[in-house]
């Protein structure tokens, strides 16, 4: 069924165009996140309909079949049901899902927000073996013989030696004409990165705040994944103490109690020192909170940690402040005051979902 695949490909192309157009919409809602697979996201799109003269729904009325008294609601006595849909030609608002590779999604994001590609820090180009047979050699096993090149070489030799007879165009490859495919190894920059998502889960961070964090984190991951070959993501939540959790818990955990931001920074630093050494990893800590910290003293501790320990070790440290009903938003001010001149620190503040795109642009726009 080759033809239908061509039409399907065309349809998908059209759909991608739509997604590209609507990317801003997806940037501010969490529709895509729940649909993330390993390598692809399935994007729900309303079926692209050809406009036609058709009946509207001015009355949801019609003829049905089955028991029920006058005034009885449809589908209450569902004993009837069980129609196995043999007649599947009803028209309606079908929702289609279309798979989009994460890589492609990142590309769309990059275009939409005009994100620069990231230049990996330092020079850690480690020659890794590239395993592609795209070279040609004069020796090799018969199974890898490159017929066309062999023939070409033989033809060249025949012509140049004057044996070429257009009336009897016979070309016999010699041993030295043989060409074989060969593996070419090229140095591939070794690029690993680790992302720390740290979130304040104290009582003041509500559902909406977490949702915003979730959307930001999704897009940040998607982008960084497209930039590095090997990505690890570490999720840290904190209130007065910090701990490492898995992705699911990160977004759904609800704690209460105080907020001690330094606890999260300390934990991240510990992990960096133990596991993600600067020599091997590009490090991206992100921290989200509503801007409230337990005490000014703890904030001082945070600033010191950032200045002396974390910032020198990472590519960029991002602080995303999400506005909540209770948060004072003081922490961002404090950070900006103390470390605002350091270009490795980026702070943003998001008051609602509409700001997410701008925040992502701020975080990733530096190409670090």
């Amino acid at each position, binding site marked *: *069924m080759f*033809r*239908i695949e*061509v*039409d*399907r*490909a*065309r*349809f*998908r*192309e*059209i759909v991608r165009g739509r997604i590209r157009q609507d990317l801003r919409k997806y940037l501010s809602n969490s529709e895509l996140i729940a649909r993330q697979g390993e390598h692809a996201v399935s994007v729900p799109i309303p*079926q*692209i*309909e*050809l*406009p*036609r*003269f*058709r*009946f*509207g*729904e*001015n*009355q*949801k*009325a*019609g*003829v*049905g*079949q*089955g*028991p*029920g*008294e*006058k*005034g*009885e*609601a*449809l*589908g209450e006595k*569902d004993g*009837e*049901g*069980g*129609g*196995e*849909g*043999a*007649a*599947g030609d*009803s028209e309606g608002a*079908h929702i*289609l*899902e*279309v798979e989009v590779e994460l890589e492609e999604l990142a590309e769309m994001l990059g275009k939409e927000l005009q994100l620069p590609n990231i230049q990996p820090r330092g020079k850690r180009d480690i020659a890794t073996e590239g395993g592609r047979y795209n070279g040609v050699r004069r020796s090799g096993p018969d199974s890898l013989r490159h017929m066309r090149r062999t023939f070409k070489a033989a033809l060249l030799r025949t012509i140049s030696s004057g044996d070429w007879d257009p009336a009897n165009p016979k070309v016999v490859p010699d041993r030295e004409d043989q060409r074989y495919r060969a593996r070419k190894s090229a140095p591939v920059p070794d690029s690993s990165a680790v992302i720390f998502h740290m979130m304040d889960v104290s009582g003041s961070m509500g559902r909406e705040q977490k949702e915003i964090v979730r959307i930001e984190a999704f897009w940040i991951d998607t982008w960084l994944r497209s930039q590095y070959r090997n990505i690890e993501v570490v999720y840290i939540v904190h209130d007065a103490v910090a701990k490492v959790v898995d992705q699911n818990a990160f977004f759904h955990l609800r704690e209460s109690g105080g907020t001690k931001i330094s606890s999260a920074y300390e934990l991240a630093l510990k992990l960096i020192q133990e596991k993600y050494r600067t020599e091997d990893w590009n490090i991206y800590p992100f921290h989200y909170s509503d801007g409230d910290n337990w005490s000014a003293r703890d904030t001082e501790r945070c600033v010191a940690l950032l200045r002396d320990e974390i910032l020198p070790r990472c590519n960029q440290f991002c602080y995303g402040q999400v506005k909540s009903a209770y948060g004072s938003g003081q922490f961002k001010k404090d950070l900006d005051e103390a470390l605002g001149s350091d270009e490795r620190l980026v702070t943003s503040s998001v008051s609602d979902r509409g700001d997410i795109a701008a925040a992502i642009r701020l975080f990733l726009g530096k190409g670090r």
Partner: protein
Amino acid sequence: MQFARRRSSSLTPELALWAERIEKVARGYGLDFYELVFELLDAKDVNGIAAYGGFPVRYPSWRFGMEFERLEKGYEYGLSKIYELVINNDPVVAYLVKSNSLLEQKLVMAHVCGHADFFAHNCWFQATDRHMLDTMGQHSTTVRRLVDRHGLERVETFMDAALSLENLLDPYLPLRGHLAKTKPSALGAPPTYDILGFLCERAPVEDWQREILRIVRAEAYYFQPQRMTKIMNEGWASFWHSRILTGGVLDASEIVDFADCHSGATARAPGRVNPYKLGIELFRYAEELGHDVFALRRRHNDASLIDELVDQAFVEREMLFLYGKNSRTARTEVTDRDWRKVKDRLLGELAWGGLPQIELVAVDARGKGELSLLHHHDGRDLQLAHARETLLRLSAVWKGPVELVTREESEGRLLACDGKEVEVSEIAAPNVEPQAEQSGEH
């Protein structure tokens, strides 16, 4: 018609044997059809063919790709599955799905015999192209050639516009032409319902665009009789598959599975009419009343058959009812079981082949070269958002202003399109009742 030797067929020997037997039994009951070719394919290929409306040779369009995507997802998630696909052609081609059980295959083959007989004898199909496979192939070649010459984007854009106008046709036109033994020649003369035909003749478009309009029109008219006889066609096929299979084709051990499969297909649905169910019951009812079912299947379409057969006893037996939205409780509920109202509603829905009845009443009535369209409102409103978009496309094809008069509930509406925008204004309600053409006896 005699037994035809099977042309190429991908059936397994066992299925081929059953096909032969079932066909023989069917013909023994008096069913009569063109040569029947079964193709056995896997589900994916059947989905692909179904996406093309049954024709694997159809012209390229993303719309078919979308349909394929939908069918594939439905199959993948186990929501829907195509049992069978049959096309009206000589020979009749039917696709069977490999993964079906032997019983299902038998059922489908018997069902297909019913469809094939219906295609061959129902009067609404008499004017259809019986070599549509070839014709579609030619259309496909033409469209591909146009794509090569004019570029995919341009052809696609115009094709999409033409497809939006696909249902602006006169369902009764082909038969009228057929009965008069002449080609319908009234193209291009308003008033007409055959707006597509009008555009083929009169729209100021380039030749290649005209070719696309003709292709879209030819295919639309080919499929129209199937829409107008959906209930009958499915009913007739179910009526016969049931009779053929229980008349000796099935082994006793298969009866329960058959009953399960059959009742699944002909289940009553509370919120809509299942054409399989309504159709089979109509034919059974007719037989009980002593009608000649073969004559009925020859003469009628869905609307006229219901007009002829449905009465109080039938509506009560089949538990048909009217439903509607209760504005107080916001529930959809049963509103009436009066048989006359049920029948009226059914007839109204089916009268114009299920399409909104839209007529081109005048060209250039006000000297601006505009097309004036009138929607014969039958109680069902048009979806205005779609109507606007469609008018824009019509205007693009016509290269001039177009307008449509319709109603929203009881209030008149004028949708005027100048090629760029559509303006909706309130007007006095057009006092036109739908004039469903009488079909029936000929």
